[in-house]
């Protein structure tokens, strides 16, 4: 399975192998392994799933089943910035849907999609637990509380500008 992807990510594959070897002897290691792999690669393409299957002797079908069951695992590459809007109850009753609608308009993509320039992926997140700041949106690790749809363009511009400068 020597394809371009595998060659270009050699370092990540060897780190993943090291991780798998370190936990091989304990029970129920698939979830942790997938979490580690997603940390390393950003997503879980088939090549990575095949590699895990070979290293752990877990059938590829089982791995694919787990990857597609849990929302945090993704088989598609995400944008550089993950934009999330909390659609937990506390945020929803305080108008997070309007924030989401504004983001859909501003970024020109639907929930779950990535912009063409691979800069932003828009996600509806589950409750982040900071209901005191509702409605909340996040960009990567940054949390924006008490959001108003009107503030959306400003927040997005901040990350766009970062790219221009970089």
């Amino acid at each position, binding site marked *: 399975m020597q394809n371009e992807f595998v060659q270009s990510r050699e370092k990540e594959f060897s780190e993943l192998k090291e991780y798998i070897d370190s936990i091989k002897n304990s*029970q*129920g*290691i*698939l*979830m*942790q392994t*997938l*979490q580690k792999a997603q940390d390393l690669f950003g997503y879980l393409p088939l090549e990575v799933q095949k590699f895990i299957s070979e290293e752990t002797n*877990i059938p590829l079908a*089982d791995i694919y*089943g*787990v990857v597609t*069951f*849990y*929302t*945090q*695992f993704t088989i598609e590459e995400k944008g550089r910035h993950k934009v999330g809007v909390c*659609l*937990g*109850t*506390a*945020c*929803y*009753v*305080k108008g997070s849907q309007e924030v989401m609608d504004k983001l859909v308009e501003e970024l020109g993509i639907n929930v779950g999609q990535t912009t063409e320039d691979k800069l932003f992926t828009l996600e509806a*997140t*589950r*409750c*982040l*637990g*900071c*209901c*005191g*700041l*509702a409605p*909340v949106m996040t960009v990567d690790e940054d*949390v924006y*509380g008490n959001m108003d749809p*009107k503030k959306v363009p400003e927040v997005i511009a901040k990350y766009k500008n970062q790219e221009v400068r970089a």
Partner: protein
Amino acid sequence: MKSIDELKMLRDEFNKNSKNDSRDNEIRIVVGMATCGISAGAKPVFDTLIKEVEEKRLNNVQVVQTGCIGMCTYEPIVEVYAPDEEKVTYTHVNADKAKKIVEEIEKKKQDDSIEKIPLMDSQFYKKQKRVALRNCGIIDPENINEYIAKDGYMGLGKALSMTPDEVIALMKNSGLRGRGGAGFPTGMKWSFAAPNKADQKYIICNADEGDPGAFMDRSVLEGDPHAVLEAMAIAGYAIGATKGFIYVRAEYPVAVKRLEIAIKQARELGLLGKNIFNSGFDFDIETRLGAGAFVCGEETALMQSIEGKRGMSRVKPPFPANKGLWGKPSVINNVETLANIPQIINGGAEWFRSFGTEKSPGTKVFALGGKITNTGLVEVPMGTTLREVIYDIGGGCPNGKKFKAVQTGGPSGGCLTKDHLDTPIEYETLMAVGSMMGSGGMIVMDEDNCMVDIARFFLDFTVDESCGKCTPCRVGTRRMLSILEKITAGEGTMEDLEELESLANSVKDSSLCGLGQTAPNPVLSTLKYFKDEYIAHVVDKKCPAKHCKALLTYEINKDKCTGCTLCARKCPVQCIDGTVKNPHVINKELCIKCGNCFSVCRFGAVEKN
């Protein structure tokens, strides 16, 4: 750590000269650094405080982080404890104010320009009783010594001096019931697993807090992680388990980090590991991360997930106490349940029963959110009424809006009305009125929230989160959702309401696990208590809360319109006509109801109906 005497010495050493939570005559500055505090900007405050104290060489001042202080609305919060003085609580602190706080301490002079509140005297705390949260917002969760100073691990020491049967009997007598939602007696659960013979048994902590709008468990894990570890060890001793797992949501990185630190510290002191307190009892704990599946809060699904499989629930029996994780006898307790246990062992069953009611002893933590003045984390004795929590503690709905409903139990619970406000909070009473205790999310809604849309919101959630194993839940909830979508789009009929209700009852009766069995609750409770709103949507084609877009019309009030042209310029479909200084008109045929005109009008001339 060889014995409980050694632990006591360590505790006393740490508490020497301690007064009013400040030790050795030090002034102690604590910063609320749970997820909510950090999101509100506590990190720069914490860094500034440390820098300022260092620069000013204030050797008697200690700056520490702590967990959730409870009043989310006032974050970031900084509290100052000084010997012989009342605690001072500073609210909405930023880096600038942090500098001033240090100056205040240095000059020993109060600066009235900094916002502070007498928190302990406020109604917010007066009606509360902190058992599960006793250390949250007070101790540094990343320092085991602070937990030990508060009698930490004494419960484990005491339990190990009793027989496992005595520990279980004590738990049974305390009447503690599962705080995860269903309210199953904890002592009973333990007693089912204890007699089973097996080469390995497991204690599992359910920290997969999935209810959207609930953050009690997160606050406990972030604020007092050792309490959970201690309780798991006690449970392990009681049922004969030597291994524990904490299954925690991946969305809680701070909680995961603090748990890892706590486990490491407990191992170093020998409070986890082999031969704890020289008693021959071994116990160790590992954390396992979820990956964003609500159904994994259901115990059989949770165990599947720890085993590395798709988190799908299965039929019970066999119950986990007989066949649990990897087929071995297991006990699964929720975070808040566990946080009560060390104190029950220390204080005794009678002490615990002195709070709460006969059938529901103790306290319950609620995450109070939504349209409420004091969003926060509150812990009240069971039997407190909803009114006391929402009005006395929560301060009612903000902006002078009228209270409409309170939702407890998240996607499994129901919406209650103002007529239920005097219901005492107990497992049975909430169930009787069509809601449930649930894990502790309590979301308040005001007149602007459409109850049909709220039912649709929860169904949307459960459809997404159904594991797909059983048909009633997989297909039934989806059908219910499409009916609700039809109603909120203004296309519903009275027959739809009947079908919705009968479908809801079928899903409730025939689903495999708790998720499906409770998923219809938000629909059934709103159908029962807010039928008129459904009828308004179906018959009058109106949304009384003015929320459902399809049922709204926008109109410009000629008397208020000044003809500023702003709305016409902001309209994305150019459907507003009018000339400068003359009243404008919206062409309803073309209007897409985006609401732009409504939000930009400075004269309140655009009216939503």
